[in-house]
């Protein structure tokens, strides 16, 4: 029995060593970047170029802010300008740059029962959905997409009654599937909608509005571990000002570009900053 217990102990010690944290840089980012597949491409490009291991925790923007505040990650990449502004105002931001953007889309059943395709603006489209008695599926998870949806309801001045506003509490892809099953409207990013277009019955119905611009920022917080700060800033610069921009520009889903690199000449240092509305 003694040899057995010694074997167990040795095994435990070896496992402990095998399982402790490698010297990798930890990044929290949003599910939309991860689900689109862009993140994998960026991570691989960076690891190949710089020889630094990245560990990615994919979560909603709200939780990404939390992990940053708590000091559990060195860098956060989010798409929620209001939450980002709050961090800046609290003095928690060491480095902030916009990295890229795309657009939110209001999608819905191809027949468009609320007639939002002809809406004058994004909040007019949301008002039409609220007043037409149709169903809307919400992320309900404090993600960047959910924050934008809430902002649009506020500007619309009305929202669907609670039985017609379904909160999934899940990521973009499951939410799109549920919206498709229920023939409901939904606010989504272009990239995830493009990825799922083969298996769901939802059409992009309204998109041409500056309030649907979706901007992503890389942020290094003052709470990052001191030993991580230099590497985290180097990564953020690589993403926002370096070769990362080329990787983003070259990323396509089914031959379509789904993220635009941040345009030169547009202020990248403020959360409120928005690029010109792309024409397409």
């Amino acid at each position: 029995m003694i040899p057995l217990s010694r074997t167990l102990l040795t095994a435990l010690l070896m496992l402990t060593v095998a399982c402790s944290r490698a010297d990798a840089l930890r990044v929290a980012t949003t599910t939309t970047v991860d689900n689109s597949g862009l993140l994998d491409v960026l991570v691989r490009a960076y690891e190949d170029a710089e020889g630094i291991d990245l560990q990615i925790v994919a979560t909603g923007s709200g939780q990404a802010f939390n992990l940053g505040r708590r000091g559990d990650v060195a860098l956060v990449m989010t798409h929620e300008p209001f939450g980002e502004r709050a961090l800046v105002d609290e003095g928690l931001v060491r480095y902030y740059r916009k990295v890229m953007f795309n657009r939110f889309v209001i999608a819905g059943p191809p027949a468009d029962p609320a007639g939002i395709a002809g809406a004058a603006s994004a909040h007019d489209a949301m008002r039409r959905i609220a007043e037409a008695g149709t169903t809307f599926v919400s992320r309900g998870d404090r993600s960047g997409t959910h924050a934008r949806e809430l902002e649009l309801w506020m500007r619309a001045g009305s929202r669907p009654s609670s039985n017609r506003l379904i909160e999934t509490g899940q990521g973009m892809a499951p939410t799109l599937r549920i919206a498709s099953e229920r023939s409901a409207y939904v606010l989504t990013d272009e990239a995830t909608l493009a990825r799922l277009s083969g298996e769901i019955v939802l059409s992009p119905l309204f998109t041409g509005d500056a309030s649907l611009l979706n901007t992503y920022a890389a942020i290094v917080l003052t709470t990052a571990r001191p030993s991580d700060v230099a590497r985290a800033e180097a990564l953020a610069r690589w993403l926002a000002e370096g070769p990362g921009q080329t990787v983003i520009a070259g990323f396509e889903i089914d031959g379509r570009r789904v993220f635009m690199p941040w345009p030169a000449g547009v202020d990248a240092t403020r959360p409120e900053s928005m690029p010109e509305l792309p024409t397409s």
Partner: protein
Amino acid sequence: MTAVLDALRLIVSGDAEVWQITGVSLLVSGTALLIASVIGVPLGYWLAHLHGRAARLVSSLLHTLTALPTVVVGLLLFFLLSASGPLGWMDLLYTRLAMIAGQALLALPIVAALTLVAIERLPLPAFETAASLALPAWTRLRLLVGEAWPAIQSALLLAFARVFTELGAAIILGGNIRGETRTLTTVIALEHAKGDDARAIALGLILLVIALAVNAGVHSRFGRRRA
């Protein structure tokens, strides 16, 4: 249907990442079970020898804790291990060790409570023999645990099945980091969220087969022992 075929192709083609993830799952849950057994079996054995109200209280507490929700254990350890938590200096959040700690906590009450029951239910002669021989404590433990082994083995099996298939603690404590803390359950949740059904189904099949095979394997051995 095509998703199921793609899933089978993924398994048969020996996709390296699928097997790496399977390895992490087995490593994490296996280690958690090992820790829970090393502590839980002696604990259950010891409690079986105690009498009185305190012992009954501890025993019913253990039984209650077998229903510990996985996400609650995950949350609790998250706040303890987070960089701004009391154990933040250990730098354990989002590592396999954090997941092992969570799963060991989940497995421990099951192992201890069911060992306690197994020892208590041993026929009296086993106890009397052990007592009359005036054996050293360690030898007596081995003897009685050996007698109760079929039941304890089922307890370990149940504990393994619980932690191997749990998602809540693994995703909160591990963070589903690729190549590091991505396990079968966390990656299935991720692939489903991404909309990659083939991978989700392939990984689900592997999870199912391992969970069932471990059960079946041990059960047949157990059956032969009794025959």
